[in-house]
């Protein structure tokens, strides 16, 4: 299983903050997960085609070619706006 977290605009537009998911067999990296999530419907398609989304694996910001494996925590979010 992997855990996926959604923050800010993504959390609102996707209607959920987190989920646990059996890692699909053809998903080896973040980019493949992004494409897989896009197929879930309109809101997913819209959010996951936006080119501003950022990703963290196990709480560290990574690029979309980062590998993912079972038990990872993956978070998708828009550019940060703190401070």
């Amino acid at each position, binding site marked *: 299983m992997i855990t996926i*977290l959604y*923050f*800010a*605009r993504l959390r609102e537009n996707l209607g959920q903050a987190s989920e646990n998911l059996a890692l699909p067999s053809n998903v080896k990296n973040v980019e493949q997960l992004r494409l897989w999530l896009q197929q879930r419907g309109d809101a997913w398609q819209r959010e996951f085609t936006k080119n*501003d989304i950022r990703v*963290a694996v196990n*709480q*560290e*910001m990574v690029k979309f070619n980062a590998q993912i494996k079972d038990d990872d925590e993956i*978070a998708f*979010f*828009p*550019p*940060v*706006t*703190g*401070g």
Partner: protein
Amino acid sequence: MKIKIQTEDFDAGTEIKQLSNGNLQVGAIVSFIGLVRDINDNAKVTEIVLEHYPGMTEKALVKIVDDARARWAIVDALVIHRIGRLLPNEQIVLVAVASAHRRDAFDACEFIMDYLKTHAPFWKKESLGEKERWVEAKVADEALIERWQQKKD
């Protein structure tokens, strides 16, 4: 190093005093306080809500302060960032850096703040009376990061 994420307000005077308390090598403390503005992108802001990524936020801030320590001679540093609902004029963030000499504290404080704005997982949502909107990241903030990366080379 002190890193705190909290809903309640902070007293900058107390925090800054504690940073140098009993540490005789501290010759300079530089601090920055960020406040909620009442106008953003030409619209009147009635309140903001700050969301963050618990766990990652703390790690990201520790890394930013560690990176600053690697570049400058810092004696100690603190970051306090508030979350939740905040009104215009309320304090959002305090960054303070203590060092032996002022230059290190000035530069490190600015560096920490620039990286916090672009690398720490916080998101602001503004209320504009009836309407709400997520605050958009500023391209200018990314440019400030490039400036630090160039300075390193």
